[in-house]
């Protein structure tokens, strides 16, 4: 198993030399005290996330682990190339399937997988989003299994969340452990909001004839990511709007202000497709802005991300991302996929059912670490229950090998110990591609656990990219 600090066990890896010395010099008590300080900061500023259906405290803190996760400059360069490549290919794929569908005609991706997919949005066929960009923020979940082995677990093309933790974790580290930052060797991440605003301004619609007005569209304070929405809107200096603040008139989008209506050109929407516009998507919904989708299609306002983007981060479509990179960019993928078996395929399903005790099985439409079977950690009863589910709905499941995720030193009850981590960078796509050196590292705080989701006892860490 690969450890971020000690590699395969042959001493401290170079990027971690300072961290190792700091852990040693601080001692457990100091680290714990800093952790408590950090959690206090989080609670005071109200960085919480809502948990549904579990009762108890409706607003919960994500546990913060004090010990940063570190990438060396050359590691990051390689990751960066791979991330940009993937984000480009995913957007090219979206543009293609909502137009000529070349990749389907070429027989590289089965038509059924796209056209019969619930995430495919027929209303988007033939629509040309500004700059041909569909997904403006791509969050790519990456795990590491060795010194040079990075693999993509999944792509998040719609509205990936968590970037506020990237920013707040850093802020908090700089407040509680300023001594670590004295050397100036850690790449800053605080330009993210500015870069996001620029990205959004770059995709202003044709109807925009001045400085574009950008707003962040949130479902409201009861959404689990509301804190992030308000945080980002604040840092970008844009309005945080709810659907009831908006209306469409004469093909343009307006927000209700104290001085009457004001034009909105670009909406960074953090609400699902289904709730954008009751006229186009869900007539029974009371949420949404009637007419918004028509205004979008007519070039009166830009929606980021575009409706129908979800097809690109479908778990079955994921299997074909390396093919997309070859097809659209003519390049070899820099980041590898995790081998994935589709249970919809008879042969692959049989193979999966034989090896449930070794594999991780995921729901195609699941997220947040729910509805998952981790073979090696499961009981026979759980496996037979899952086998039954797979047989009943084969198209609903995929399987992957149980990866030995790398571990990273973390503060546990007994001391500093390795805990499994993953990594989500946030790639911005406007007229140019922007990538802030950093991202969100999630950590499975339970010993041996491979599930890093916050809903399943995962925590977060500051992530450093070292300068050369």
């Amino acid at each position: 198993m690969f450890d971020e600090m000690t590699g395969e066990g042959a001493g401290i890896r170079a990027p971690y030399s300072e961290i190792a010395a700091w852990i040693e010099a601080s001692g457990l008590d100091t680290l714990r005290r800093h952790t408590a300080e950090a959690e206090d900061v989080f609670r005071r500023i109200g960085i919480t996330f809502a948990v549904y259906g579990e009762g108890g405290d409706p607003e919960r803190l994500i546990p913060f682990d004090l010990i940063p996760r570190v990438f060396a400059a050359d590691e990051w360069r390689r990751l960066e190339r791979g991330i940009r490549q993937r984000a480009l290919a995913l957007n090219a794929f979206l543009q293609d399937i909502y137009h000529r569908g070349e990749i389907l005609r070429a027989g590289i991706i089965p038509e059924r997988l796209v056209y019969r997919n619930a995430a495919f949005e027929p209303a988007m066929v033939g629509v040309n989003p500004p700059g041909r960009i569909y997904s403006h923020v791509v969050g790519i979940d990456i795990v590491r299994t060795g010194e040079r082995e990075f693999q993509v677990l999944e792509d998040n093309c719609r509205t990936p969340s968590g970037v506020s933790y990237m920013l707040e974790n850093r802020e908090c580290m700089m407040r509680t452990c300023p001594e670590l930052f004295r050397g100036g060797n850690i790449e800053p991440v605080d330009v993210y909001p500015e870069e996001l605003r620029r990205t959004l301004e770059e995709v202003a619609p044709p109807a925009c004839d001045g400085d574009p007005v950008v707003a962040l569209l949130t479902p409201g304070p009861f959404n689990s990511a509301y804190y992030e929405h308000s945080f980002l809107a604040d840092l970008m200096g844009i309005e945080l709007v709810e659907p009831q603040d908006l209306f469409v008139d004469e093909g343009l989008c307006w927000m209700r202000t104290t001085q009457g209506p004001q034009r909105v050109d670009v909406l960074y929407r953090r609400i699902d497709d289904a709730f954008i516009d009751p006229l186009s998507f869900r007539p029974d919904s009371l949420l949404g802005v009637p007419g918004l989708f028509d205004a979008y299609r007519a070039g009166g306002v830009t929606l980021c991300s575009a409706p129908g983007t979800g097809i690109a981060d479908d778990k079955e479509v994921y299997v074909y991302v390396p093919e997309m990179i070859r097809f659209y960019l003519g390049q070899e993928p820099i980041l590898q996929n995790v081998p994935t078996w589709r249970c919809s395929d008879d042969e692959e399903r049989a193979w999966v059912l034989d090896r449930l005790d070794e594999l991780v099985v995921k729901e195609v439409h699941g997220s947040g670490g729910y509805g998952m079977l981790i073979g090696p950690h499961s009981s026979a009863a759980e496996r037979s229950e899952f086998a039954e589910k797979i047989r009943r709905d084969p198209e609903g499941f995929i399987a992957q090998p149980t990866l030995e995720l790398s571990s990273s030193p973390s503060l546990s009850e007994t001391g500093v110990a390795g805990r499994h981590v993953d990594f989500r960078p946030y790639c911005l796509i406007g007229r140019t591609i922007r990538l802030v050196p950093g991202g969100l590292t999630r950590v499975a705080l339970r010993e041996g656990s491979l599930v890093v989701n916050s809903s399943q006892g995962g925590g977060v860490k500051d992530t450093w990219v070292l300068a050369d």
Partner: protein
Amino acid sequence: MLSRTAESLFWMARYIERAEATARLVEMGRRMAMLPGAYGQEEWSSVVAAAGAGAAFDPGERIGEAEVCLSLILDEDNPSSIRACLDRARNNARAVRTALTAEMWEGLNDGWRWLGGVEAATIQQDLPATLDRIRSLSALFRGAAQTTMLRGERYDFLSVGAFLERADMTLRLLDVKYFVLLPETGLVLDSRDRYRWISLLQATSAVRAYHYVYRGDFSPSRIAHFMILNRDFPCSLAFCYSGLRAALNRLADRYGERHDCHATVEKAVRQLQDREMDDIFDEGLHGFLLEALRLNAQLSGELSRAYHF
């Protein structure tokens, strides 16, 4: 600015102001109940009425300190309770997080978290400390707004809400207690009257300020003057309306547009300036208070029409 933001700021300020006023009312009730003469029952009823929480109690029910305190401080189902006010203030604050400074949010959020953990037993054991903490919470919030908030339209809507609510609370307190201020019928003042007057001042944290301004005995007409016409006392109707007018005028300058609410507040301020307390007593204090409460409600409606919320 979004109309919803203006609305949330307006209501957030109102709820914080209301929470503080309710804390002062409970403080008043507590002091009155300790005085000789045992007319606590009557005091607690007027506390409940002034807090606008009459609906939380059955008519004719004997209201005692313990029930009132619990109901007015902790009862989530009583919309006038301090907890309910802080809940709504915080919900409004969350909805406009970006419009608040970090200091304001932290002040409110800390207070809300603290009150969330307060239990009935704590209130019974240490009511004064609980009430102090509630008052310092709103003081902290106001102080944070005062020293950290940009003097822009957000601040103006916050001020409008605060002044309107404070005027409303003063009026409701007077409305419940107006009879103790009616011109003396008998020649002999009993100590009971004196305490009743003082209680009005206590409910607005104003005993010392009163002495400073009037330098003498308590008299109903002076107390009424203090609470209605005095331009320097922050809870008086005249003060609140001047504050309202100033905030609304700033908005009018900013937006280059005047609305009905501007005319209404202008007229009200001028009338308060021209009035003498004797005139008000001659016309009838109760009628005056009812009219002022109606005007407050009218103003609230005009505000939401003017600014689209």
